[in-house]
């Protein structure tokens, strides 16, 4: 069975998403789609100085894409932009590691459950979708605040 892909943690986040729903106020948002399968995600961020005061999201798509957004919310809300960037880099490396890169639980939390997804090239994009949207939203929020 699909244990290596569909870890219990992923199924749990999919069935019981944490922090789902777009919230106000927010500083920036980004909408990303996966053109091959129609997964969609919108990620909103609210910054408090250097801290991600809130990461809210909504979307539709497969269990991998939606669970990844839930993990993202849980992992990064209340954390600094530096933590967020480190986690984003670590998650991307893990997903591009063809299943051979074990994630660091201290950095990625439940995100390490996605290591098996990296063995399925068609699904890597699903897992990365919300992380890419977050990166975009943070970039927009930061540049808008500076500008």
């Amino acid at each position: 069975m699909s244990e290596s892909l569909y870890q219990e943690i992923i199924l749990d986040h999919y069935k019981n998403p944490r922090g789902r729903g777009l919230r106000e106020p927010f500083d920036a948002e980004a909408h990303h789609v996966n053109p091959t399968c129609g997964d969609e995600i919108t990620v909103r961020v609210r910054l408090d100085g250097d801290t991600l005061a809130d990461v809210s999201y909504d979307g539709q798509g497969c269990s991998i894409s939606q669970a990844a957004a839930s993990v993202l919310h849980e992992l990064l809300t209340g954390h600094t932009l530096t933590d967020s960037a480190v986690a984003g880099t670590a998650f991307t490396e893990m997903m591009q590691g063809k299943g051979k890169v074990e994630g660091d639980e201290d950095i990625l939390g439940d995100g390490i459950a996605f290591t098996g997804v990296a063995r399925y090239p068609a699904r890597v994009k699903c897992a990365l979708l919300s992380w890419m949207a977050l990166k975009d939203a943070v970039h927009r929020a930061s540049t808008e605040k500076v500008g």
Partner: protein
Amino acid sequence: MAHRMASPLDVDRIRKDFPILERRLAGDRQLVYLDSANTSQKPRAVIDAVTEHYERHNANVARAVHQLGEEATAAYEDTRDKVAGLISAPSRDEIIFLKNASEALNLVANTLASGLAEDPRYRLGPGDEIVITEMEHHSNIVPWQLVARRTGATLRWFGLTDDGRLDLTDLDELINTRTKIVSMVYQSNILGTVNPVERIAARARDVGALVLVDAAQAVPHMPVDVTALAEHGVDLLAFTGHKMCAPTGVGVLWGRSEVLNSLPPFLGGGEMIETVAMEGSTFAPIPHKFEAGTPPIAQVVGLGAAVDYLTGLGLGAIHEHEQVLTAYALDRLAGVDGVTVIGPAEPVDRGGTVSFTVDGIHPHDVGQVLDEHGIAVRVGHHCARPVCVRYGIPATTRASFYLYTTTAEIDALVDGIDEVKRFFG
């Protein structure tokens, strides 16, 4: 329950012709291949023909005076005769070998847009209208969007009914005296719908518009007679080899001689010319006018073997077999809670491509769990995203059948869907 037809094919025997169907997947699972609309599997005869070409006859075509060159050219040109026979084309010169159906559709769109044709019927410009349908593959949408932008022509389309068919209510308005070309799919690659191309072509002929048919999902699965279609107004027809047991890399454009002669060349290069001078060139007659450069020779040879294989069994018998499978699949899927078929629910004017959704479970997840059971389906929007938008769904799971598909494989699919529901339930 309606009387169920029996398949005219000896499927057990046919399956022995396809080595890959013996394949054991990870975990020693048997392959259940339900993705033939994506690409078909290849029979031993085709694999052998390609191997034999490379082992014994390999040379470039139409350029060499040596024996191998003559053999390769003869095999290449033999396929042209076979393909002409397959689709009942009145002349072998009306068969153009290209790399796939997409290239064939792009050839027509781009030559019409080039403005190089002498006859204004073959030049697109501002005020002209192009008519397609909402159930086209992206390869029959995007080229027309591009040439509409380039030429100032207007792109229009037929919408879809709730039951997955073309809405022809506006037939006489949509196809009018401004219409330059109508380009439509014969059998939808996502809905399975077989469209009334004769009726639409007849209207187009009445207003003097060209008619192009995307037959990529039709020629592999049913008898297609372009001489008969031409009588209804069809001018051009595109299909691809790899969906009909042939290798990838070879597609076919059929066109009425008058139309192909009137269209300007598409790609320039070797073998498509008559004479070349620095000041300008003249072009070879069809079919070579449209076959620039070294063609996919081994693939064309493989296509010839595929045509022999399919015609040996009979396209009529293959079609009947698939009708039996389609009726069986629609019947079985109708009995699965939470499964909704996207496309015609009855096995009438529809082929063996069945798209469906499973309540609350994304198609990617459906496909992944089915794969764990060795069942290969396609998930996504199948390069027909407007259809998904029309029916308010992000994607579908698609099972598609061919001459080697069995009812037992459809049973495996239904069991697999039950597993999917258990897993995500």
